[in-house]
């Protein structure tokens, strides 16, 4: 098998199979849980993981050169009823025909779930622990759809373990470290649980060794036999000891990742700065004469594997995170601990091999700064031009000062990486609860106007009201988030992952109990573009031109502009809109987002950290839009909100991409330390050829100097997307940018597809 051919076959295998749900993990987890009643939850979680890893069916698929699969069938979802059995029960019949992220459930599995799993977990799940904790005002804020609280029915995830430590110590090394701290601090449940998990993982690797033995015995093809032997030797080598080669490092990394998936089944246990900590292995191999092609194959295999893990979410959640943003997010470039540009040979190889595979994962990002070599920026631009939206780009020049202001040390700030889509984190040191809540600001304005329109006599009064509402609702969002955080602390321990987080072994506490160094809760302000656009229309139309009264206007909005199309058009076209470099409205957006940011950061969470504001939507601009009636900016009821978090409302930016950058740059990017997101779409003609790449680099440098945190690109023509919508079979492997992540276009529902098609295309 030629090597590229191998990966094309593996890729096709991923894309062509029907996604199913495997209830195996749930089965063994539940079996174990039933036998551990009365024991501390952290121990129960560890034993459940142990039972899963000891029994779950394992496989080596044809052609694979790295071992470790989360499920036997490709791209299957796995369920965790211990978090919430309810949505699975409610949706089990519609999972296969739902518009987003469909999964097939075998009839026998359905029966097993309804008869065995559901009755056991009802009343016992995380959801049951959270629900009674939410106070009536918090509930109201959730029910009125201003605030949405996440992770009430699933593990938290959104964290970057210290994989460097894993590779430097090996599994036995970590166990010895536990011994050291246990001797110092005395025994406790966390240490015990961590040890159970690590040895369970070692046994799990032992099962693969055994499986490989059998496969080797049966294999007739000598070439394949050799590959299997190599996998076996690597597995034996890293079952206890630290890896000795790039290949072994990759193998250990992947086994550990599989176990982390089994532990929490959570989204975005991200990879971090792969090109930094894999570099020593790369250099050692190269010095020892290992060929670059062999290293490239290892990378390609890893990238394929990262696409095998897809997350089963509820119908609602799948709308917010459409198309499987699993979150194997890798950051390239950035800075060294001493503050120099950190791109290296491996960073280039990662882009080269990504170009060969072109799937949504790994979600590559580049950390750009003044000291990063321009030739690497140009290289990254070449990959972006392929059109998959990978890599997206982060700006060290603004993100680092933001982190420093949050009390992160200089060395740690230089080491930041991205979790999931755009969440800013410190690998191995931060439990940021990055996606704990979202704050729907246009909905807030809608309700405030419906309640108070008749009392508002001036524009200033209106702004004061909006600011007051922001304050009140942030308080409720904080309360709700803290309740979820507390419940996770009681029932969602992740002792295996905690062994790779600084501070946990030292303090003897799991990350969910606040064991690690930096503890934030990340909360997203959404739709401030629509909010500012709407308030600007009201300011001019109602208070300055006095064309109609505020109550009349609110009535028109309530009727969804019925009979007022001319007025609606006027509101769209005749008043300044965010995204066109017009100060009046841009600065209003900035003021209100800052208000939100400053409210959030005054609150403490239950792990001793603060609330860290962000502004990104993932794909939530569509479901959150469905919850908002007509808005004064001319938006119809239920229409999507502005995408990204920073991007202008679709179709409202008419002055080109530089004007968009200028508008976006007026928001305070030093404050949104949880992350933010800007989408820009270009026609492929815009940056054609080498001269085009050079202009693209110019554009990125301008973006960097404007101190904008993030940017991502869709470089694909509208015609291609429309054709792909019509003929999905022709475009099975078309990867597009959604929001902080890329997805297979055919994996997205029609609404999300339309949203991407409608984004302003610059030429």
């Amino acid at each position, binding site marked *: 098998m030629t090597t590229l051919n191998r990966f094309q076959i593996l890729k096709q295998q991923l894309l062509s199979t029907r996604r199913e749900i495997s209830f195996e993990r749930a089965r063994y987890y539940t079996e174990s849980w039933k036998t551990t009643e009365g024991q501390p939850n952290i121990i129960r979680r560890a034993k459940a993981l142990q039972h899963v890893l000891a029994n779950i069916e394992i496989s080596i698929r044809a052609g694979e050169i790295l071992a470790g699969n989360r499920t036997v069938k490709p791209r299957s979802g796995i369920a965790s009823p211990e978090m919430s059995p309810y949505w699975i029960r409610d949706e089990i019949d519609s999972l296969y025909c739902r518009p987003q992220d469909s999964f097939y459930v075998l009839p026998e599995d359905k029966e097993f779930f309804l008869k065995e799993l559901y009755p056991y977990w009802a009343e016992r799940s995380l959801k049951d622990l959270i629900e009674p904790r939410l106070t009536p005002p918090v509930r109201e804020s959730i029910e009125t759809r201003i605030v949405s609280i996440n992770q009430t029915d699933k593990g938290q995830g959104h964290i970057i373990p210290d994989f460097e430590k894993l590779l430097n110590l090996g599994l036995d090394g970590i166990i010895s470290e536990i011994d050291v701290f246990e001797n110092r601090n005395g025994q406790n449940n966390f240490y015990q649980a961590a040890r159970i998990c690590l040895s369970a993982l070692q046994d799990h690797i032992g099962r693969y060794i055994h499986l490989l033995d059998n496969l080797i015995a049966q294999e007739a093809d000598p070439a394949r036999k050799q590959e299997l032997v190599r996998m076996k030797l690597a597995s034996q080598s890293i079952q206890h000891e630290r890896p000795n080669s790039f290949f072994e490092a990759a193998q250990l990394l992947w086994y550990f990742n599989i176990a982390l998936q089994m532990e929490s089944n959570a989204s975005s246990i991200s990879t971090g700065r792969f090109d930094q900590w894999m570099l020593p292995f790369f250099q050692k191999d190269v010095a020892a004469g290992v060929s670059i092609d062999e290293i490239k194959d290892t990378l390609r295999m890893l990238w394929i594997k990262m696409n095998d893990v897809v997350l089963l979410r509820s119908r609602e959640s799948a709308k917010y995170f459409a198309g499987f943003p699993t979150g194997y997010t890798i950051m390239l470039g950035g800075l060294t601990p001493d503050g120099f540009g950190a791109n290296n040979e491996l960073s280039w190889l990662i882009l080269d091999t990504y170009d060969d595979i072109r799937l949504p994962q790994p979600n590559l990002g580049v950390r750009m700064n003044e000291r990063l070599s321009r030739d690497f920026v140009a290289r990254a631009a070449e990959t972006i031009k392929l059109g998959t939206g990978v890599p997206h780009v982060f700006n060290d020049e603004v993100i680092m000062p933001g982190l420093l202001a949050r009390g992160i040390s200089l060395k740690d700030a230089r080491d930041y990486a991205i979790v999931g889509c755009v969440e800013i984190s410190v690998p191995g040191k931060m439990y940021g609860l990055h996606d704990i809540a979202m704050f729907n600001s246009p909905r807030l304005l809608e309700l405030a106007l419906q309640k108070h329109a008749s009392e508002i006599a001036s524009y200033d009064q209106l702004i004061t009201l909006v600011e007051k509402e922001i304050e009140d609702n942030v308080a409720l969002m904080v309360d709700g988030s803290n309740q979820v955080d507390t419940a996770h602390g009681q029932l969602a321990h992740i002792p295996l992952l905690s062994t790779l987080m600084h501070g946990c072994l030292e303090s003897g506490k799991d990350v969910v109990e606040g064991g690690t160094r930096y503890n934030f809760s990340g909360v997203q302000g959404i739709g401030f573009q629509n909010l500012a656009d709407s308030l600007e229309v009201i300011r001019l139309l109602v208070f300055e031109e006095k064309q109609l009264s505020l109550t009349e206007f609110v009535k028109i909005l309530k009727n969804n502009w019925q009979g007022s*199309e*001319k*007025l609606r*058009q*006027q509101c*769209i*076209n*005749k008043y300044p809109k965010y995204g066109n*470099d017009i100060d009046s409205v841009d600065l209003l957006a900035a003021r209100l987002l800052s208000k939100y940011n400053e409210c959030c950061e005054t609150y403490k969470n239950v792990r001793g950290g603060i609330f860290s504001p962000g502004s990104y939507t993932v794909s939530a601009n569509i479901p959150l839009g469905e919850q908002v009636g007509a808005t004064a900016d001319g938006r119809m009821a239920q229409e999507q909100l502005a995408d990204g978090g920073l991007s202008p409302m679709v179709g409202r930016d008419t*002055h*080109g*991409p*530089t*004007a968009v*950058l*200028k508008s976006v740059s007026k928001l305070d990017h030093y404050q949104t330390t949880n992350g933010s997101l800007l989408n820009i779409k270009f026609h492929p003609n*815009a*940056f054609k050829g080498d*001269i*085009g790449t*050079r*202009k693209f*680099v*110019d*554009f990125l*440098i*301008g*973006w960097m*100097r*404007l101190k904008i945190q993030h940017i991502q690109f869709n470089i694909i023509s509208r015609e291609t997307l429309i054709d792909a919508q019509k003929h999905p079979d022709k475009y099975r492997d078309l990867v597009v940018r959604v929001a902080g992540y890329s997805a297979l276009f055919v994996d997205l529902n029609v609404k999300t597809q339309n949203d991407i098609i409608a984004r302003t295309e*610059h030429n």
Partner: protein
Amino acid sequence: MNTPLIFNIQRFSIHDGGGIRTIVFFKGCPLHCPWCSNPEGISTKPQLIRNNNRCIQCSAEDAYHCTNTPDNCPVNALTCCGQEYTVDQLVKEIASDQIIYDEDNGGVTFSGGEPFLFPEFLEQLLSRIRPWTNSIAVETCGNVPFENIEKALPYVDLYLYDLKIMDEEKFRDVCGGNLSIVISNLENLVSLHKNVIPRIPLIPTFTDDVENIDRIAQLSLKLGLKQVHLLPFHQMGSGKYENMGMPYTLSELRPFTDDQISAVVSRLESGGLQVITGGF
């Protein structure tokens, strides 16, 4: 001072001149080429544009019959083309993208219409932006008194200089221009400035005959110029004529095939010129 109206400020232009550029379009041109893709740049006066594609028929059957003013049209189907700017205002507009076009040879291009119809205004503007602008380019048809061009000389990095029809009479009849002025201005300019690039609009039946192309090549080579830009005909500007109520006479012309374009390119190259098709 002769103050221009500006009919467009296009930010993030990446197809005219190097790098990322802002293009300022001056309203008013001494010529009237029938293929002009910016016909709104020909008259120096403000003009009403009716873009019927946008019309939602709120007050009339279509934009052509509408008696509303641009202010009253909710969808901007009616717009007024040509806006007055002071030098200060224009400086501010040009500065807004400075941080982005600062890299390599990005900058500002003055186009139109004909920027050199407004020499004093242009000189004031150029002297203001020169200290902080990377690259300044001017597109000109050359059909102006040389002193108009001369005033700007100390400030400009690059001239994009139109060479269209090289037959005195035909040029006068078709475009209303004076070829000997255009040529003598070019000679003067080249003797004073090292960065001049002829631009050739390649228009079927007007400029594409072999003789015309050869004459352009000969003149360029004689003046020691190394590079020319070739801008093949397209119909993209045709809708604007309709919107402005101006007659458009070239609707029957078909764009060139790639082969036809390459033939012209080879012909120019065979004489030793470097050819860039479609500008930079």
